[in-house]
């Protein structure tokens, strides 16, 4: 099937409820930092925005707006010790197998096999959907994440939006 047209679908669904169309960021080009080393030497981190939290932590709010919470996740966290709260998407599969949205088991396997250098000391969950405070992300929260990634010696971030 053709990819879902999310921009149009959201404008229709929310427009019918009185919301103005979401003003998506649009860019003509993108920054690029080459990976300066082979994958087998890279420290890799993961980031999900799918409302994923450890069972011992407070859950994300399923219907959050402008939630700038960002949790760090230990690299050895068991994949069955998470829960998902996000009304934006169907996470039935990820509820039984976290790797559908946040493939921590698969990443650890690739590290054990030597395909990547190492799993980063911190993985990340946050930046849940429906953030309208774009400047807070651009000027504060995303640079803070970049700083923490740098502190952890991360070479590559795999980001999984939801």
């Amino acid at each position, binding site marked *: 099937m053709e990819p879902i047209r999310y921009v149009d679908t959201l404008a229709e669904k929310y427009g019918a409820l009185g919301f103005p169309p979401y003003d998506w960021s649009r860019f003509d080009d993108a*920054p690029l930092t080459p990976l300066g080393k082979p994958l087998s030497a890279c420290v890799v981190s993961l980031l999900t925005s799918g409302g994923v939290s450890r069972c011992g932590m407070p859950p994300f709010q399923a*219907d959050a707006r402008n939630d700038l919470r960002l949790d760090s996740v230990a690299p050895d966290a068991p994949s069955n010790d998470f829960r998902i709260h996000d009304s934006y998407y169907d996470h039935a599969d990820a509820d*039984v197998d976290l790797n559908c949205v946040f493939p921590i088991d698969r990443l650890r396997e690739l590290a054990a096999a030597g395909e990547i250098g190492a799993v980063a000391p911190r993985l990340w969950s946050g930046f849940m959907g429906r953030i309208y405070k774009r400047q807070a992300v651009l000027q504060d929260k995303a640079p803070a994440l970049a700083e923490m990634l*740098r502190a952890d010696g991360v070479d590559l971030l795999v980001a*999984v939006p939801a």
Partner: protein
Amino acid sequence: MGLVCRVVEEAGIATVCVSTGRDITALVKPPRSYFVNAPMGNPFGQAGDVATQTRILRAALSLAMECKDAGRIVDDPMQWPAPFAFNPAPPTAEARERQLRK
């Protein structure tokens, strides 16, 4: 999330996005994107499908390694086994109230 990737990349750390929203990705242009035509809750495939999860993660990592043209989107070949739609829960009454007051 695309914005976060752009900021992290600008700070000198490589990023790759594994996306299920091709149109949004094309607008926001994260530095590198691997597009999987699957429901939003299944960017790495189905529950228990270890082979597909590994294949998609590997493909994303390879893209990070090889991609030299910024903003590129690479399409995963997987065909999702059934048609799917996007059905977010409607905003809460409180969120609607807030919006309508604006």
